[in-house]
């Protein structure tokens, strides 16, 4: 049994413009101790997956179908009280905006200590001691004297560390990080990512890391799910995703990032933008932007299937493209170039001029 199993999750938002399907038939699992990445651009539905796990989807949103099992227990079937005892305790969360996660009127230390008193029943002294230790673990300098500082006295990076300390305070089995470093400078990002990795290892915590940054995913994740317009389009072990991407969207994403030391004059682009989730294109949602789209793509919706075609039932590399059901006549045409001794990887699409 995996630590977390999400099956066929569909989340809808009822807006004035119509029904937005923010997550559409999403399935994935996370094993204990592993780091699972969710990558995609804004509007892809990444955060919705995270909020669903904590049952934090609010009106006008609704989980319309699917199952979420955490250690075999059905999260969607629980009472509010049962969910609350899991939230922040067994499953903890770190958001992009650390500021909103911290209460401005309490000192940082007090907030973390309070969580421990509440969830773990520590007394004041134990809670304070453990809090100082945690602040030190996440590398807040002078943790002891910083304990009573208010959030505004912390820099952005320190606030994010404090939030991570708070998330870890109850020794969760699953840590969900939603764009934990997006608002931070690379130097601070590197520190925080290293910490998340180290802590996950030390406490054997599974991590679901949500980001739009393929660099971040490559650095910390074991397995990855790529999302586009509310749907997963590819799932793979991290190395396979980067060295052998199967979905044209993944290929497009990889080739559009500038990299230091690559001297292409022009970046490859994915033409157009993410579609409006109210009015998804027919067939494959990606077809209007896909350089390999054929007539069939406008009619038939691809589902995630074994992209290596080796026939294994529980394939670990799957992609949702009609290429893998044999529907395309021309096929996909791109190449992954591994350049030079320092293994530089550039994805090139031959058709996309």
């Amino acid at each position, binding site marked *: 049994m995996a630590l977390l199993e999400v099956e066929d999750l569909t989340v809808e938002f009822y807006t004035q413009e119509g029904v937005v399907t923010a997550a559409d038939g999403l399935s994935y699992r996370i094993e204990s101790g592993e780091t699972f990445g969710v990558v995609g*651009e804004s509007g892809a539905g990444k955060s919705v997956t995270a909020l669903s796990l904590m049952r934090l989807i609010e009106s006008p949103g609704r989980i319309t179908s699917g199952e979420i099992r955490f250690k075999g227990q059905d999260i969607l079937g629980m009472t509010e009280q049962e969910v609350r005892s899991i939230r922040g305790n067994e499953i903890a969360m770190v958001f992009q905006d650390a500021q909103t996660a911290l209460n401005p009127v309490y000192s940082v230390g007090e907030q973390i200590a309070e969580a421990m008193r509440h969830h773990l029943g520590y007394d004041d002294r134990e809670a304070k001691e453990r809090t100082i230790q945690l602040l030190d673990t996440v590398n807040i300098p002078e943790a002891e004297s910083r304990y009573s500082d208010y959030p505004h006295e912390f820099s952005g990076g320190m606030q994010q560390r404090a939030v991570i300390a708070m998330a870890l305070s109850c020794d969760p089995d699953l840590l969900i990080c939603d764009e934990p470093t997006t608002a931070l400078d690379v130097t601070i990002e590197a520190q925080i990512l290293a910490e998340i990795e180290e802590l996950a290892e030390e406490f054997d915590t599974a991590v679901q890391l949500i980001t739009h940054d393929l660099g971040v995913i490559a650095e910390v994740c074991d397995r990855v799910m790529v999302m586009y317009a509310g749907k997963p389009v590819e799932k793979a072990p991290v190395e396979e995703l980067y060295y052998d991407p199967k979905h044209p969207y993944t290929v497009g994403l990889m080739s559009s990032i500038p990299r230091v030391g690559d001297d292409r004059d022009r970046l490859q682009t994915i033409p157009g933008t993410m579609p409006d989730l109210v009015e998804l294109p027919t067939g494959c949602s990606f077809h209007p932007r896909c350089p390999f789209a054929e007539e069939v793509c406008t009619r038939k919706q691809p589902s995630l299937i074994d992209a290596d075609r080796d026939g294994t039932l529980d394939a670990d590399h799957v992609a949702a493209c009609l290429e893998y059901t044999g529907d395309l006549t021309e096929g996909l045409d791109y190449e992954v170039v591994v350049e030079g001794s320092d293994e530089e990887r550039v994805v090139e699409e031959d058709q996309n001029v």
Partner: protein
Amino acid sequence: MSERTEESILRVEGLKKYYDTSSGFIDSLLGRGRSVKAVDDVDLELREGETLGVVGESGCGKTTLGRSILRLIKPTDGTVYYRDEELTAVSNVRLRRLKKDLQYIFQDPFASLNPRLTVGDIIGEPLDVHDLADGEERTERIGELLETVGLNASHTRRYPHEFSGGQRQRIGIARALAVDPEVIVCDEPVSALDVSVQAQILNLLEDLQDEFGLSYIFIAHDLSVVEHISDRVAVMYLGEIAEVGTTEEVFSPPHHPYTEALLSAIPEPDPLWEDEQITLPGTVPSPIDPPSGCRFHTRCPRIIQPDDYELTQAEWRSIVDLKLQTGDAESVGSLATTEEESVELSSLTRDRLDELIRSEYSLPRRVSDEQAEEVLSSAIDRLHAGEIADANERLDSAFVSPCERRPPDQYRTGDAHRIACFLYEEENDEHDSAGRADAVVED
């Protein structure tokens, strides 16, 4: 004052912008009123038709630099020349005319467009201000501009909220292009965009540059983006230029220790990438009270040790960290933390404290230099006695890096490559025996 070369279109000399915080909200935050040295004595040059990238961490003064160059905010000191004219000295009437040539694209495509104006009026506004077109001609020009940036001419009657982030950034670009400028300062034009859209905008900016012969100052915190688009790059740290040179000179391989650290911190989109990452300790210090000497010395992995010692670089860095922290610390407890009980440090034996401090600062049981070890252990004695100030004094007088004493000049290692770091002081002598570090251009 130095001669300007044929190609330089903008020239910045000794530019300073200090924000007075004596009556602002920052003041009440810090309980004091002093000036934020957001840009401190910057020399730069923008050449005709080039893209000059400006990178640095958040708060290092990039936006302030871009805005003071265009005189969108008034610099505290220094001069900016646009071609032959001193922007910092011309009359307001003249400045208004010159501003037509100098455009600015804002960091945030969501906040920078007036939500109550149609796209047509947003782009038409600069045309009106500078009396460039009206009536039929104005409408035509707006449609043309929209098409130039890849939008549809029929979009003129729509409002900003009807567009996506990438499209709004295109509108901002169209507005800047409307007056047919010479120079555009692009302040983080792609930071708020998705990667696939970011690539589209970067390509668009490059196409427009070719088509209209524009010169860009391109501000960003993302090194890969800057490396991709720039001909030359200036790296900023705490209001100063740490290094400037061609993109090649600055990045391959990196020279200044700060550039090196920034580069190594970028998460590589390659799971098999195994470069050693340089982790900078801490965050950027406050620009209100920047460190003495080289402003980067408090975090620099390559900080120079005085000739008196022969420590390993890691030992030396750690000793400086300990020194700096004893200067700030309120209690011995904040210098080291125990696993078991964090509070009772005072009851520890001398040896246990020694062990804790060395483990906290990754120092070996004895450092490799005898003389340094003596000072270090006497300082730990003082800490054990609870005398932090005394310990700090010992460390302070024995361990002083040349990097702390005075700020480095901008050493020249190539034609236009200037590095503000003492490690390049000697190379400078070879290249430029005259040693005029503040000369902007040589003929």
